[in-house]
């Protein structure tokens, strides 16, 4: 079925002004992705070709990728990043929603104080805690461990606040009914409430995973051993090693960007909606 009205409306709007507008926005978009296109193009170039302006390489090569994957610890860093970000995101999804749910749906003395206390942690910048975390990591032997990288982000005030907002909009009757049916409180949360807030959970997951994937300052401080580096720390360490081999550095940067880009291209609608959701509620 062709919606005649919609098509007419669209044609009517396609005036010269709209075409110019579209073109301008498109060109702006091209400028935005230029650095990324450039990085990707360079990763397929040979050393001799690097300084040429062309986007498409004359003799495309995968040699840079082979070099990065064989000669550096890039694969190791990739797995480190993946493991830390996954573990941390799983923890945040579980605990932030558990706390958010408890604060939204249980009536108990002290609820308000707990909420304010958790909310107040949003005011504390990470930078202020880094020195105490480092002292803590040194005394407990967490330097150069995955746990050391992950522990500061296992729960977040932002996620708790976001999940609480969403759980508050669930009707109480739903929970009451399940209680009367003899469900345990944990089962009510996990099996009834959680499936109803999946959009919020996925928004939180995307934010947290991306934040972890790109996190730099804390992993930089808590790791010294190149085997434990996350991708950003590893790429920053290229500084001395491959200083002027631009094609190698571009390839590494490209590999670092690829996973998030792929996920975005697959789930674009979903991710944009999640960010709008979190932005408006948060």
């Amino acid at each position: 079925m062709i919606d005649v009205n919609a098509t007419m409306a669209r044609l009517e709007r396609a005036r010269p002004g709209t075409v110019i507008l579209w073109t301008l926005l498109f060109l702006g978009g091209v400028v935005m992705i230029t650095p990324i296109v450039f990085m990707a193009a360079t990763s397929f170039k040979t050393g001799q070709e690097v300084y040429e302006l062309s986007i498409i390489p004359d003799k495309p090569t995968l040699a840079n990728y082979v070099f990065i994957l064989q000669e550096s610890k890039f694969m190791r860093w990739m797995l480190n990043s993946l493991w830390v970000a996954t573990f941390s995101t799983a923890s945040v999804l579980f605990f932030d929603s558990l706390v958010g749910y408890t604060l939204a749906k249980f009536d108990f003395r002290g609820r308000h104080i707990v909420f304010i206390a958790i909310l107040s942690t949003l005011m504390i910048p990470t930078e202020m805690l880094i020195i105490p975390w480092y002292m803590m990591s040194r005394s407990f032997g967490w330097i150069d461990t995955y746990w050391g990288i992950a522990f500061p982000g296992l729960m977040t005030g932002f996620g708790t606040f976001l999940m609480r907002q969403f759980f508050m909009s669930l009707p109480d009757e739903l929970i009451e009914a399940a209680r009367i049916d003899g469900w345990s409180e944990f089962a009510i949360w996990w099996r009834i409430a959680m499936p109803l807030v999946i959009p919020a959970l996925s928004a939180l997951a995307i934010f947290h995973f991306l934040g972890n994937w790109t996190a730099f300052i804390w992993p930089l401080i808590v790791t010294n051993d190149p085997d434990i580096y996350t991708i950003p720390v590893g790429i920053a360490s290229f500084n001395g090693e491959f200083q002027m081999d631009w094609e190698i550095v571009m390839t590494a940067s490209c590999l670092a960007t690829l996973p998030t880009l792929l996920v975005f291209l697959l789930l674009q609608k979903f991710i944009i909606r999640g960010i709008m959701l979190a932005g408006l509620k948060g």
Partner: protein
Amino acid sequence: MANFWNKFTIKQKLAITAWLFLAVPLVFYITIRFYPTFEAFYVSTLKWNLLGAKKAIGMKNYIKIFADEDFWLVLWNTIKYALVGVPVSMLIAFVIAYWLNEIDFGHDFIRAMYFIPFLTTAVAMAWVWRWFYQPLPIGYFNTMLSWFGIPQQPFLRSVTQGLYSIMAPAVWAGLGFQIVIFIAGIRAIPRSYFEAAEIDGAGRRQILREITLPALKPTIIFLTVVSTIGFLRIFDQVYTMSADSAGGPLNSTKPLVLMIYEFAFDEFKLGRASALTVILFLILLVVSLVQLWLMRKQK
């Protein structure tokens, strides 16, 4: 056990369950958030190099900081990042969001082009930008300038241009997020507002000024605060891009967080570094309080 449990009223049972659910998180928040916060204040009153003995010196760290010319330079750099970065990025983001919202054909595609930089890792992109800023014949910006006969610019190597050359990638990376939030804000305005204005014969500009912008006030406040805090905490780009040494040339690009990092982890002056984190905390606190105050006036 069951017998014991049944002695409680339903309300008591629910309260006990709630505290059970909160038990592990509370341990986390106390040990990983609150205790370190107090520790940061405490360490800021010490002279301590991590290995030697701690020596209580009261407010001396703060006095030293305020007497240090470099601190004022770094503070001014930090403020410049926010003072220029926030309005510039917000303005560009709003203009793009406003017009992008008018477009149906290929909307998702164009939006994706603006959003993709948000997904990149600052440290990885720093390499690309550093390359773009190189002198001729490698550097792309200088190549483009040469097409128009404009002389070479030093960019990252310059005391005056360095800070803005580092700010540009930060603006670039954050733009997509701001655009998406702006579009969401514009779409949340009830259609009837616009229809009523059109019936009253209001022009596009008048609608923008008297309906769209006032209705977007919460969105604007939210984005201003989020990006102000982001720019005040800038670190990744500076650490990976600045010329000569981190924060160079001649400290002209160094922000507060980099100064904290250097005092703590290069020089091991933990007291001094902690005092700087307390100062950063107070600055960010003021920003957050201003936001709360603005939001309150809203309602």
